[in-house]
């Protein structure tokens, strides 16, 4: 195959791939422009030649860059740059390409890929990265051939060998790159902490929650965060946000920040955990209910965390990258707090009489009992994610007409009914799950685990009540049951996150120090001869085992004919005849003096030759037979 054609095809392939990769991240006009120019290029190269003066392309490129400079703002650098690079790539492809043009194309592709790395934070990126290293390596090698002589014709076999053998470069470079990742200096501040400027990825909770909204969150099966911690029985509540104000349709938080309160926690079990949060483009940090302390480590410099009086934690900036934080929580459903209660008794102005009267029925001798009565009553209703009450008077419809709903209906109903009975209450938003990965030892929290529950203020304590029927867990499981394979994939993903997120400047310094001290201690060490001997023995044993295995492998993969030939040479040697390279087996056999031996050798040799020079291939049975015969001679 002609090298020029090969280089072209390969270049277009890689360009097409990078286009597919960034496709979801760029705007329609750029998508279409690239596609159009790309098709023109393909048409030009493979069907009919079109002459496009270079000067036009160069002018277009300059205009593009100026346009990019105008359009870019500090909040969103990546997307315009990526779009511009992509169009530059398509212009470059359109040119008549020489060696340096191809090199520029590969450079552009690399830059686009680097830009893509900012947009994509999932582990799939790693797979793409490896794929691209291999592809680009192959492309440049082809280009090297092309540059040396553009008339080169490669046979299929040569091409195959070039592909398979040149793989050694990326195969060696990947571990080297990983090593560089460990050792290259890194800053305390992420240089590329650029917000990809998308709010479209945003799901989950926001400042206010309307009835029916959580169910749409729950349709999403995306991972929100993973929490590395010990397994605790039952379901775990992850606190995110609280709401005090209900206007009949949605919940809001209206409590001013400056109100301070004193909290006391009952003696209960505490847990320490680490949360690996995916970018939420929001400011909530989720904690195991009820949180005691949160530490963002290095990230606190970028996302200054704020611990609110309602025991929620927010950051100063939206979380646009994967982050991790440590937390300590107390596993309890109540804590003492001296909050002014006025904010937690407000009722929606147009609350229906039906609801008012209905709620009053649950009034009991003390507030705990009242709350329990409400929970018991609500448990009788049906939990459902579909066909939810909508429109006006949703609460009434939920309680008396549809009698079905999801967590926010239950939580809202309870909170409102508590308030009707003069018990201060609020709704807490977060996640509830029992999905624990036993291999990775972490809780996996997805959007579908989104949940609302109620806290009632009784006797100076905030007490958690969850009025949603327990059937919720099963219903949610049916949204998408994680298969074993998916769990395994998630475990790998988790470890990838843990590694990437945990590896910061301080870890690197620690690594330097250990390596440094190891090196200096090697110098100081007075050599412990015994230890070294043991190590040496280990090494020798390991090397022996490895080489024996290699030999066995080689032997096993060799054809039966070859093995017999080797055996034959060995046996001949035993019989006192050294086979020379230029002599046939029969000639060698003739040198054997013992006539009986000679005859038996000759028989085997003829058999073996009939396989080597004939069309048949030797099978195992025949091989064993001949081998036995051969060994039996001497």
């Amino acid at each position: 195959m002609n090298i020029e054609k090969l280089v072209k095809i390969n270049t277009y392939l890689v360009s097409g791939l990078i286009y597919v990769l960034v496709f979801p991240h760029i705007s329609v006009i750029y998508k279409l422009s690239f596609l159009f120019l790309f098709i023109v290029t393909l048409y030009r190269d493979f069907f009919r030649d079109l002459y496009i003066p270079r000067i036009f392309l160069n002018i277009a490129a300059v205009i593009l860059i100026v346009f990019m400079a105008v359009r870019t703002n500090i909040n969103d650098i990546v997307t315009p740059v990526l779009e511009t690079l992509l169009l530059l790539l398509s212009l470059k492809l359109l040119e008549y390409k020489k060696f340096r043009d191809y090199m520029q194309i590969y450079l552009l592709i690399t830059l686009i890929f680097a830009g893509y790395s900012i947009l994509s934070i999932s582990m799939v990126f790693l797979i793409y990265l490896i794929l691209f290293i291999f592809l680009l390596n192959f492309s440049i090698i082809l280009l090297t051939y092309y540059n040396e002589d553009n008339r080169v014709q490669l046979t299929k076999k040569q091409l195959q060998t070039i592909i398979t053998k040149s793989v050694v470069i990326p195969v060696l470079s990947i571990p080297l790159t990983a090593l560089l990742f460990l050792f290259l200096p890194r800053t305390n501040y992420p240089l590329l902490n650029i917000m990809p400027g998308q709010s479209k990825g945003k799901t989950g909770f926001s400042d206010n929650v309307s009835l029916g909204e959580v169910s749409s969150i729950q349709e999403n099966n995306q991972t929100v965060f993973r929490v590395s911690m010990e397994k605790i029985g039952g379901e775990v509540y992850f606190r995110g946000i609280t709401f005090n104000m209900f206007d009949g349709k949605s919940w809001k938080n209206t409590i001013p920040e400056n109100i301070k309160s004193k909290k006391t926690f009952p003696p209960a079990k505490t847990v320490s955990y680490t949360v690996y949060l995916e970018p939420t483009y929001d400011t909530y940090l989720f904690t195991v209910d009820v949180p005691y302390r949160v530490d963002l480590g290095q990230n606190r410099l970028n996302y200054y965390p704020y611990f609110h009086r309602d025991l929620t934690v927010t950051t100063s900036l939206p979380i646009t990258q994967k982050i991790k934080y440590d937390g300590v929580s107390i596993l309890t459903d109540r804590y003492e707090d001296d909050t002014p209660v006025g904010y937690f008794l407000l009722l929606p102005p147009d609350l229906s009489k039906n609801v008012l009267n209905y709620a009053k029925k649950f009034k009991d001798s003390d507030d705990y009992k009242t709350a329990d009565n409400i929970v018991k009553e609500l448990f009788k209703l049906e939990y459902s994610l579909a066909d939810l009450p909508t429109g006006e008077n949703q609460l009434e419809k939920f309680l008396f007409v549809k009698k079905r709903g999801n967590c926010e209906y239950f939580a809202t109903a309870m909170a409102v009914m508590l308030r009707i009975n003069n018990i201060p209450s609020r709704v807490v938003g977060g996640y509830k799950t029992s999905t624990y990965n036993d291999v990775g030892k972490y809780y996996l929290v997805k959007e579908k685990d989104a949940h609302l529950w109620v806290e009632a203020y009784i006797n100076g304590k905030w007490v958690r009540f969850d009025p949603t029927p327990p059937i919720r867990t099963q219903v949610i499981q049916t949204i998408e049951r994680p298969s074993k394979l998916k769990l395994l994939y998630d475990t790998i993903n988790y470890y990838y996150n843990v590694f990437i997120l945990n590896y910061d400047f301080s870890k690197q310094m620690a690594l330097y120090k250990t390596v440094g001290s190891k090196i200096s201690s090697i110098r100081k060490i007075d050599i412990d001869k015994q230890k070294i001997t043991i190590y040496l023995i280990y090494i020798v044993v390991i090397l022996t085992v490895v080489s024996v295995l290699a030999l066995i492998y080689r032997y096993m993969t060799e054809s039966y004919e070859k093995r017999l030939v080797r055996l034959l040479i060995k046996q001949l040697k035993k019989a006192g005849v050294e086979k020379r390279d230029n002599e046939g087996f029969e000639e060698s056999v003739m040198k054997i003096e013992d006539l009986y031996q000679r005859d038996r050798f000759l028989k085997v040799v003829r058999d073996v030759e009939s396989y080597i020079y004939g069309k048949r291939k030797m099978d195992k049975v025949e091989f064993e037979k001949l081998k036995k015969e051969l060994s039996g001679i001497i």
Partner: protein
Amino acid sequence: MALSGFIGRRNIQGIKVEIEFPPEVYANTDFPIKIKVKNRKKFLPTFLLRVYIENASVLFLLVEKEEEITTNFKIDKRGSFKLDKVNVCSVFPFSFFIRCQTYKVDVEKTVFPQPKRCDLLEKLIDSISKKKGEKITDKPGYEGDIISIKDYTASTPMKFIHWKASAKTDSLKEKELSQTGSTPIIVDFDKLSYKNLEEKLSCITYTVLKASNSDIELYIKYKTDIFYTKDKNQRLRFLNIIANL
């Protein structure tokens, strides 16, 4: 970068270059040489290797075990030619650098003078034929007159079939022709006079080659020796002598 350097270096190591010249080589005349590259590395083949021999070069795309390329080569000067090293270079893997290494080869060759067309032979033949004319021998051959007619043997070309005789006798007959012979010519090397030595050597080389390919029996006297140009060994011995003059 480091890796490409390392791979590039490894690429041109562990190989062996062998060069094979044809037995007779003439100055200023293209002749084919065989360049053989053997790769002795275990795992890696040698990619994209350019072998430079004096000012000629050949490109090996891929050498797994052994590859061979034949190319034209020319040596300007007659006499002894010695090639003890060749340069091999490669831009593999990424065209960033060109790396070269010198390998030992062992080629020693005597380059014969460049044959140049001249009319020495014609003159010699003329001078002889004026004296005696063509000499016809009575040995059987393929060019002279018919000396007899005999039964056809299968190995004889058809054109020698004597159709007339065959028609007369009802069995195939063939013509037996006599061999045309020519008078042996002896040239005394020292007595030939030319403008300069090179002219003389070129002309005599041409004459020797031409004579060796025709039926002319040319002997050349050089000092005390006489060389018969039809005998390969003698011819080469003579060319060897004049190549080094």
